[in-house]
């Protein structure tokens, strides 16, 4: 573990010794919980409709596929007209597009960002690499199956998929959401241990809290 995450003793005012255990003191340790849907089906349907029509993507390009997402904002594709926009902070985003190969190092960041998004949240895997490793199938440093680590709602195939394919993927995602089938966040909370084990298996220097709130 990194040095700054190890326990240390700090001198407080008046000379008292204060023990700081960073992972405990700095981070919330609560595990994620399954969040129930709204009590009434009508409300939940309304919500799902709104969620599907207002997809906010986390602006985090994890791999080469990120380059294919830029054209979506251009006049040619104009994803905005479908209620899709990019947010710079995971707190406000509800869709995480893993755009291409994911090295272990980036996986760590992706997990952290995913966990910082709020329930309900969706993951779309972009390109072959997220599905089975793609051309990096034999790399020592790139994961092969994204769904081992994060609950993926939808894969978009291709290497790379064209923006049109992305748009199509988003349309499919909308359908999933509207049907109430995009419950990745709850799935993640339910199988939290499984996901964590998978994650920790490849991330050898796990130096973050189990769930990054």
């Amino acid at each position: 573990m990194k040095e700054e995450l190890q326990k240390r003793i700090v001198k407080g005012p008046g000379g008292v010794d204060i023990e700081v255990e960073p992972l405990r003191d700095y981070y919330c340790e609560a595990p994620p919980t399954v969040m129930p849907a709204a009590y009434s089906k009508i409300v939940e349907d309304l919500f799902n409709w709104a969620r599907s029509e207002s997809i906010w993507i986390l602006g985090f390009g994890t791999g080469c596929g990120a380059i294919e997402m830029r054209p979506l904002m251009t006049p040619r594709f104009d994803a905005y007209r479908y209620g899709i926009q990019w947010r710079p902070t995971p707190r406000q985003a509800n869709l995480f597009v893993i755009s291409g190969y994911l090295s272990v190092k980036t996986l760590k960041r992706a997990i952290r960002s995913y966990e910082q998004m709020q329930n309900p949240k969706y993951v779309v895997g972009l390109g072959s690499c997220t599905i089975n490793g793609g051309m990096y199938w034999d790399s020592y440093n790139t994961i092969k199956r994204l769904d081992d680590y994060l609950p993926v709602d939808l894969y978009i195939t291709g290497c790379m998929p064209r923006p049109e394919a992305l748009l199509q993927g988003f349309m499919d995602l909308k359908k999933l959401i509207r049907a109430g089938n995009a419950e990745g966040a709850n799935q993640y909370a339910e199988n939290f241990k499984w996901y964590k084990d998978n994650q920790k298996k490849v991330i050898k220097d796990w130096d973050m809290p189990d769930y990054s709130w």
Partner: protein
Amino acid sequence: MQALYDKLKQHYALGELSEQRADLCFFTVPREHLSSLLLYLRDVEGYTHLVLLTAVDWIEQNQFQLTYLVNNRLSANDIGIRVLIDRDVASMESIHHLWPTAATYQRELKEMFGIDFPGSPRIDEDFILEGWQDLPPYRRDFDTLKYSEQTYRDRPGRVTHDPASHMKQQLYPDAED
């Protein structure tokens, strides 16, 4: 380039000159001459820019070859200086005092090849890989495929096609061979 080489040769035990292009040449030098040679090139001959520092694993000769590529901006020349070091005791003198940027390359080499550069800043910190526990991955005796299979789960049904034949099959399924 030849002139420079001849000049250098008088002082340093240089290996053979290989001129790859008119403005790029390589030669080897014993490790103990390296620092002095680089200093000379930097301060006297105007090779002020360290373009890169990289390594090649000559597992057959049980050697690592370090290549220090320096560039003279005014004459737009590059010289690659090769140093061969023993693969078993992979350690080399740091040149971060000549170019602070060298420290970064050296960190990378430490991580990827396991070549140590004692005294180089932050040499022991993780560079690209975080928490790597296996053999340094760029060593040729490291089997990346095996590692990958052990570490990452395959998705069943994955097949590999030759792109040319596969596309041919896809686009012109009826075409003869």
